[in-house]
């Protein structure tokens, strides 16, 4: 065992990279759930975003354009969920599961000719002075731009939810759609926009995996990240900053676990791997005392009778 082999600076830096796809998807889903909708199709939207972004980046040579398209692709897939749940009023749980199934298949079909190709690389930001600072420079100032975008998005979602009228309306819709409707808010329209936003974020998260974190395309490459993002939203009790913290925790458990193994520490891998979920359940129980946390209308179907 040689714990000194673990370099904490590098550990934190790679933990941030591991956390970014989960964070992006979770922030999107957080907004969706705040609006009172539960979309279990995150995994499906992520993987469609992953292949759409990858293919675009390969064809155009521009990773940034790839990210843009991945967001559109994620949103496009979530449009199916919109049709199912907001127009056809189908059950959200079943629709979300069907969306994941559909997305996994669709992405595999789209990606058939992209197996084994190397995508163009997105450079890391290098700020003169700042990036060269010891410790802080490596942790804070030497990543790719999407990682910063993820953090900025977290801040933006937090600010919008907390301080703006839009945020207030969104929360009102999620808490009690009938009351929000009575006040004259367009419940369905607001929910549709939230779902599309969630889809775009999930698409971005998927593309982060296929373009930066791995980077390559293979079928089923998201390997369950979408489900972790769903857990994360709950863990964060629908608060953006906690989602950031949670993403580092969820992403971190894997990274730390692998680092401990490399340092020769014998650890029961499976038990460590289940710990974030157990912690999430614990957090849920603690939150239950605080009734205000979960959007009250989560998962319920809304139909305006007139």
């Amino acid at each position, binding site marked *: 065992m040689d714990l000194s082999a673990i370099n904490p600076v590098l550990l934190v830096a790679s933990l941030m990279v591991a956390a970014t796809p989960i964070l992006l998807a979770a922030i999107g889903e957080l907004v969706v759930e705040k609006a009172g909708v539960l979309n279990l199709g995150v995994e499906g939207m992520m993987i469609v975003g992953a292949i759409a972004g990858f293919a675009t980046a390969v064809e155009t040579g521009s990773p940034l354009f790839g990210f843009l398209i991945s967001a559109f692709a994620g949103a496009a897939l979530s449009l199916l969920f919109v049709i199912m749940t907001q127009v056809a009023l189908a059950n959200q749980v079943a629709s979300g599961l069907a969306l994941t199934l559909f997305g996994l298949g669709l992405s595999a079909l789209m990606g058939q000719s992209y197996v084994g190709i190397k995508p163009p690389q997105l450079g890391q930001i290098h700020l003169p002075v700042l990036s060269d600072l010891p410790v802080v420079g490596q942790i804070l100032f030497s990543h790719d731009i999407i990682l910063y975008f993820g953090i900025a998005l977290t801040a933006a979602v937090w600010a919008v939810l907390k301080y703006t009228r839009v945020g207030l309306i969104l929360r009102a819709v999620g808490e009690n759609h009938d009351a929000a409707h009575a006040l004259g808010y367009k419940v369905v329209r607001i929910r549709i926009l939230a779902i599309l936003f969630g889809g775009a974020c999930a698409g971005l998260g998927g593309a982060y995996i296929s373009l930066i974190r791995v980077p*390559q395309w293979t*079928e089923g490459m998201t390997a369950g990240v979408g489900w972790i993002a769903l857990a994360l939203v709950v863990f964060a009790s629908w608060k953006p900053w906690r989602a950031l913290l949670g993403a580092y925790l969820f992403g971190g458990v894997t990274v730390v676990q692998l680092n401990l193994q490399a*340092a020769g520490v014998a650890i029961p891998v499976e038990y460590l791997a289940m710990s974030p979920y157990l912690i999430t359940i614990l957090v849920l129980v603690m939150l239950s005392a605080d009734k205000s946390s979960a959007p009250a209308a989560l998962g319920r179907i809304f139909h305006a009778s007139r």
Partner: protein
Amino acid sequence: MKLTKLLTGAAMALALATGAMADTTKVGFVYVGPVGDGGWTYEHDQGRLAVEEAFGDKVETVYVESVAEGPDSERVMTQMALEGADLIFTTSFGYMDPTINVAKKFPNVKFEHATGYKRADNVSTYSARFYEGRAVQGHIAGKLTKSNTIGYIASYPIPEVIRGINSAYVHAKKVNPDVEFKIIWAYTWFDPAKEADAAKALIEQGADVILQHTDSTAPQAAAQAAGNVYTFGQASDMAEYGPMPRVSSIIDNWAPYYIARTQAVIDGTWTSVDTWDGIPTGMVKIGEITDAVPADVKAEALAMVEAMRAGEYHPFTGPLKKQDGSDWLADGETADDGTLAGMNFYVEGLEGTIPQ
């Protein structure tokens, strides 16, 4: 009981009838992953395509991908047998018992199960001696490493993976007595994100050569991003990452075996065998060693490949001890296949324990 016999009897008659009507030989492949996985299943599918190429109109191939181990695989195999397949390759360890079950019902259909240990009159097993390739990797890795730290991304603690670790270690140690292995058990065959993280963790802890027993190219990309780290392709060539970081690779080359077995069925000479082939027959191929490897090291590695091809060298040749210091192989003695097949111990010098 009688009903099943009647039914399977009828099925076989049908299968025979269809087989006799068309004089093409039908070969089925059951895959555990998608053909687009770029690794294990991809290489089996390359083998299937080679069969089509070699026999043209005389052979028809069919495959079903992403078949879950268990009842689904049993159904898919039965389906292939009913539809008139003469030869069926089942390409995952977990298909072992289903293959035996289905083979009992179709005595006239030949089955080939990859990596298992149960055989029958119409069931052969085949596997590759990847540890021969690992020996070459270990040799190159031992020579290349400057930090004397080699990272190893292992999948599951099963004999095949443990053999690979031991073989690589023995040969790295031989050329570099100071070498140390850092091993990560990823508990997956294929999870690009996790493999990338594992590679990063190893690199951050000072490894400058990464060996992997998982199937994605994610560790290659991680090594490339880190710079000055060497890797080896796994399952497929991964040549797109050459000449650096990927300096060589182990390629699963099933084509010669698949072609030979199909030919045997056509000729009527097929018998149940236990095949465990390696470099000599070309089932294990060493991908091109790039110029990032010094010429003398490359020459030594190629000489080792040649010695194995000629059958003059066995990667596990004594004197070798087990991790606990007890004797395993005496001077000049080579490991027997039984021990290798069930290998569940590290050789002397490796640190850590095999997770149970």
